[in-house]
């Protein structure tokens, strides 16, 4: 019997005001058959430090988070 765990980023979502959500799926398989699956969401707002995130997440944040987007977000929340 083989038991495997797989964790993968299944989607990266960007909202209108630049909030990024990384959706990760974790699957457990027994003999290649998926027995359970869970989904995790991790959110980042414009200007957050994403240096510890996967390269593709960093790349998307760098493109999405222009200085204008960061300023507009901070202005919207009043800081």
């Amino acid at each position, binding site marked *: 019997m083989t038991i495997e765990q797989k964790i993968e980023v*299944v*989607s990266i979502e960007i*909202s*209108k*005001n630049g*909030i990024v*959500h990384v959706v990760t799926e974790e699957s457990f398989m027994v003999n290649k058959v998926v027995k359970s699956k*869970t*989904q*995790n*969401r*991790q*959110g980042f*707002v414009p*200007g*957050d*430090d994403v240096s510890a995130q996967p390269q593709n997440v960093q790349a998307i944040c760098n493109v999405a988070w222009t200085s204008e987007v960061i300023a507009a977000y*901070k202005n*919207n*929340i009043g*800081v």
Partner: protein
Amino acid sequence: MLKTVQSLFNGFLGAVSVTSIEFPATQVPSSNPNTLDDYEEGTWTPSIGRSSTFGTYTPGVLDGGAYTKIGNVVYFSGRADGSSSGASGGVWVVRGLPFPTVNNASIGRGPCLIIENDVTLSNSRIMQGTNDIQAPTLVDTAATRYFSGFYYIS
């Protein structure tokens, strides 16, 4: 009767059985207020910092959260016991809600219960157009913190 219902649903929703209804991974929003167009459950990753410069959050071993999204409402709970460093400006926030809150001052804000070291924090609220819970009276050191609430998305 069940077979008839199943046949009716199959045309609209894809895989439907008599025990479950499966929605697509990516919501297909409906403009009809009488239509249920999404359901999702999962976990989320809370962290603590300040709203201006968030800083670096070191999580606790029991950190985590769960959510259920039904249509345009998200129900959540979580725990964040860790500590923050390098944060400044604005107010303390719990960041990482699983979906952005609706960017509307009337319905995008709402109360959220946060209990820190057995004390209920005053003035804690979900903020519009963010994925933050504001918690002005939170402390920045490691503590036992639980939170729960619900909010609307756009």
